[in-house]
């Protein structure tokens, strides 16, 4: 454990209250729609009602005649400036405004700009578009059929296959499968869902024709990457682009990609010569921006009769929609899905993924997830329960038998990862104890006798977060390091600027705590700034639980550089040699002479007023941190559910979440992250799905039918921790934000299947709606 600073310093481990809250609780946050510029005008998107159709005509005259309308931009207009298409974050391209044809319902077709938002919306209704419907491809399993329409005429390859990717040892795995005494198989579909942050995406774009500077306020989780994309797409010099990411009302991966609306607003700002605001509606957000998951997965496990695992074989069909707009590291078309061996020690494994196009919205983004780890964790944890059922083993026993033991770390997985540290048994044991597992099993047996339905679901997941390292990870060639720039002012107060961007994670507090830990400057005295590319050091942004593993590490190392310089100044002030000094948070003292010391504040003052001859003045440092490896947080979650036989409704009676994210910066914030992620996992397991009918109409495209749990449906969460520090991270942290979203869906589904397992139920796809469960109950003769 790390040495604990005094509460008034507020270093690591203190549950200090968040610094950012004061403005939010007074309604004084500055979110994108709060940005107001003189002369600002509004953009509104015209969208396609069809999933696949040729555009035969677009008539804009009527719209342009409406008083207050300033411009109507179409794909043809953008094509003239070579902007009709833009690169996606995964080496595909995407239409900004459709030319020729549309490929999904709600696709962007024209952009109307007007004096106010009401006029812009009115004018959007006046844009007339003629469509000729084309055959629609919705079922990804039909994408390779000979009669399937080829969706992407712009591509050289006349096929709907985007990629085939495989990893692991196919031959050895097949062999192990063949010779294994026991195998179990599950087909699990992880439905298309959406991060749906409470604030939608939007931007305000201003172009100053005198200076040539483009200032873009964007709801961006990765402002620097967006600046570079803007520079490359628009051909503007990068120093003339300033991206400012203001306060963000939740992101969860939704705000990583560049969206057509941003490009259209920029074009409009340049052509009309006034600042343009574009804010999408909730429905537009759900229907057209980065969806997540949509993985059709099959897993097979091979084991011996005692349940010792031998091999894992995974085959997946990934539905990417009309464009491959996944935000994924270049080398990983299926992201980190190959973490699907999870917490278990396999001797061989093989995993293959086919990515295909369909007439659906583009995406495949990492929703509170490190690039497909959510799908992977769900799959292996589901498959483990299916195998346990096959072997008639308690799921706890099966897990215990197969965990990678603590002494095997660093552990090399058969699919190529090097897990940094873990103690899976420890987390499982604590969770079992907290929930009272044995008593619950007894209760379940009694209830079964009485015909009542109760289930217990376990998920002992392993995560993989904190991308870099840069030799393996990049987004569009931009290496995934991250950064911190720390300046200590003469009075001993400080400011630190970061390459990441909080969307509610509390960076203004946690990063300050890292500085407090390293330098003994009270967290309250350290201002944190993020999101302005003109001032912040370059970084790849906040998603995939990477802020603490990367920028957090950079913060600590920048602070250590400052401390080294402070040591030199202290030696000068105390007239001793550096070796004679010892450090405790906040001051250097002369060894053996406790009274002789200099505080960090005194040293800071001297750095500007009384530094040694020949020393560079000032007290600041920058650090760009390229992690040597990823971090591997883990945990065990246990859900207890009761099912109403009459209605099929599932009630989550209890939920215990034991997380191990290594050393913790702020326990209060970590707990909040866990609560929030579990609630999102609950939503995915029980209520959310974006599906399409066979004509390609979106179902689940508004908050009326894409359900977000309220306080009433959300159960009480019980949390706990074990602590296995990361051996390679400067302060042993691992990151936690996404764990609850990654680990919980399997716990919920396992619990529901467990409640029904005696009826012969082996698997049910999410969402576990009352209707779906009721049908099963009816089928099994449990209800009328």
């Amino acid at each position, binding site marked *: 454990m790390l040495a604990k600073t005094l509460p008034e310093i507020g270093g690591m481990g203190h549950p200090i209250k968040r610094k950012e809250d004061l403005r939010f609780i007074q309604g004084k946050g500055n979110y994108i729609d*709060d940005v107001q510029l003189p002369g600002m005008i509004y953009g509104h998107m015209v969208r396609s009602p069809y999933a696949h159709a040729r555009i035969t005509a677009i008539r804009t005259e009527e719209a342009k005649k*409406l008083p207050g309308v300033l411009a109507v931009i179409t794909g043809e207009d953008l094509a003239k400036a070579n902007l009709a298409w833009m690169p996606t974050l995964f080496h595909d391209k995407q239409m900004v405004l459709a030319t020729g044809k549309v490929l999904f319902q709600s696709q962007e077709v024209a952009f109307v700009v007007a004096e106010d938002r*009401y*006029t812009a919306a*009115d004018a959007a209704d006046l844009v007339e578009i003629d469509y000729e419907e084309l055959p629609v491809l919705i079922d990804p399993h039909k994408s390779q059929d000979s009669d399937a329409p080829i969706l992407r005429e712009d591509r050289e390859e006349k096929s709907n296959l985007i990629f085939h990717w495989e990893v692991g040892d196919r031959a050895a795995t097949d062999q192990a499968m063949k010779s294994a005494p026991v195998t179990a198989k599950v087909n699990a579909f992880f439905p298309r869902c959406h991060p749906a942050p409470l604030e939608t995406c939007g931007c305000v774009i201003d172009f100053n024709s005198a200076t040539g500077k483009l200032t873009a306020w964007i709801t961006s989780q990765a402002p620097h990457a967006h600046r570079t994309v803007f520079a490359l797409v628009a051909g503007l010099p990068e120093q003339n682009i300033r991206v400012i990411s203001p306060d963000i009302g939740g992101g969860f991966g939704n705000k990583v990609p560049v969206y057509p609306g941003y490009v259209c607003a920029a074009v409009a700002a340049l052509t009309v010569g006034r600042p343009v605001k574009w804010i999408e509606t*909730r429905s537009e957000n759900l229907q057209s921006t980065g969806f997540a998951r949509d993985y059709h997965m099959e897993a097979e496990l091979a084991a011996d009769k005692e349940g010792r695992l031998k091999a894992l074989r995974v085959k997946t069909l990934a539905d990417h929609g009309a464009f491959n707009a996944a935000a994924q590291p270049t080398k990983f078309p299926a992201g980190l899905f190959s973490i699907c061996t999870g917490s278990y020690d396999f001797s061989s494994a093989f995993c293959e993924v086919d990515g295909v196009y369909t007439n659906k919205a583009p995406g495949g983004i990492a929703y509170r997830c490190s690039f497909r780890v959510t799908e992977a964790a769900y799959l292996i944890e589901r498959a483990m329960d299916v195998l346990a059922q096959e072997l008639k083993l308690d799921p706890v026993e099966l897990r215990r038998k197969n965990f990678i033991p603590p002494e095997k770390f660093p552990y090399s997985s058969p699919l190529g990862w090097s897990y940094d540290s873990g103690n899976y048994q420890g987390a499982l044991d604590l969770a079992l104890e907290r929930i009272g597992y044995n008593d619950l099993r007894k209760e379940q047996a009694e209830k079964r006798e009485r015909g009542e339905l109760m289930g217990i679901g376990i998920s002992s997941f392993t995560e993989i977060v904190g991308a870099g390292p840069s030799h393996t990870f990049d987004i569009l060639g931009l290496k995934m390091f991250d950064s911190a720039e720390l300046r200590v002012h003469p009075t001993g107060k400080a400011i630190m600027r970061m390459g990441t961007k909080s969307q509610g994670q509390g960076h203004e507090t946690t990063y300050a705590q890292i500085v407090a830990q390293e330098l003994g400057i009270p967290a309250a005295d350290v201002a944190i700034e993020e999101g302005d590319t003109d001032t912040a050091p370059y970084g790849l942004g906040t998603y995939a639980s990477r802020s603490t593993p990367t920028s957090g590490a950079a913060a600590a190392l920048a602070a250590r550089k400052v401390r080294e310089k402070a040591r030199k100044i202290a030696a000068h002030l105390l007239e001793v040699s550096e070796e004679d000094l010892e450090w405790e948070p906040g001051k250097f003292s002369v060894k053996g002479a406790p009274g002789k010391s200099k505080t960090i504040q005194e040293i800071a003052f001297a750095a500007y007023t009384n530094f040694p001859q020949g020393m560079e003045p000032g007290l600041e440092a920058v650090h760009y941190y390229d992690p040597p490896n990823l971090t591997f947080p883990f945990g065990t979650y246990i859900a207890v559910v009761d099912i109403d036989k009459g209605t099929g409704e599932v009630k989550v009676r209890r939920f215990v979440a034991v997380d191990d994210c290594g050393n913790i910066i702020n326990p209060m914030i970590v707990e*909040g992250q866990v609560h929030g992620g579990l609630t999102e996992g609950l939503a995915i397991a029980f209520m959310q799905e974006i599906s399409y009918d066979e004509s390609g109409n979106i179902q689940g495209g*508004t908050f009326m039918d894409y359900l977000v749990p309220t306080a009433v449906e959300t159960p009480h969460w019980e949390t706990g921790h074990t602590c296995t520090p990361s051996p390679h991270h400067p302060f042993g942290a691992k990151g936690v934000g996404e764990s609850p979203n990654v680990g919980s869906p399997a716990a919920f589904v396992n619990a529901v299947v467990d409640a029904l397992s005696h009826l012969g139920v082996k698997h049910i796809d999410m969402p576990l709606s009352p209707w779906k469960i009721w049908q099963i109950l009816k089928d099994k003769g449990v209800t009328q």
Partner: protein
Amino acid sequence: MTTKRAVDITVKVNGKEHFAAVEPRLLLVHFIREHLALTGTHIGCDTTNCGACTVLLDGRAVKSCTLFTVQADGRELRTIEGVGNSSALHPLQEGFKEKHGLQCGFCTPGMIMSACALLEKKPHPTEEDIRWGISGNLCRCTGYQNIVKAVQYAAEKMSASASQA
């Protein structure tokens, strides 16, 4: 189609009288945010589901995205900006900070307004009362547990100071 005929209205907002001429279809939330520049009231949906726009209209919590400004004519509005400030935080504001009842903060003003209305009616709410009381407000970040604690904190603090008075 657009009818730009303006309607004169009078509305009291956070204790201050405002006169305005507004388009009849202007949504109350846009009036609050753009005409009065009170941007603490947020917009999170287009289907009256999220409650980010919640304000008090004559003391009742309403979703201001689903009312026309003209419907507020002659009435009294309270928004988050009228609840408290840095030097005198409302117990609810304090509770949200103390109990970590917010993360991104986007739902927070609406939550606080709904909780205000709840505590007005039920000064000693049970957990169940609180959960139902804020069930018109969605939060994507917190999982509600700490919001419940924040409201409990405020309820206790408010009843303690009421009994002292």
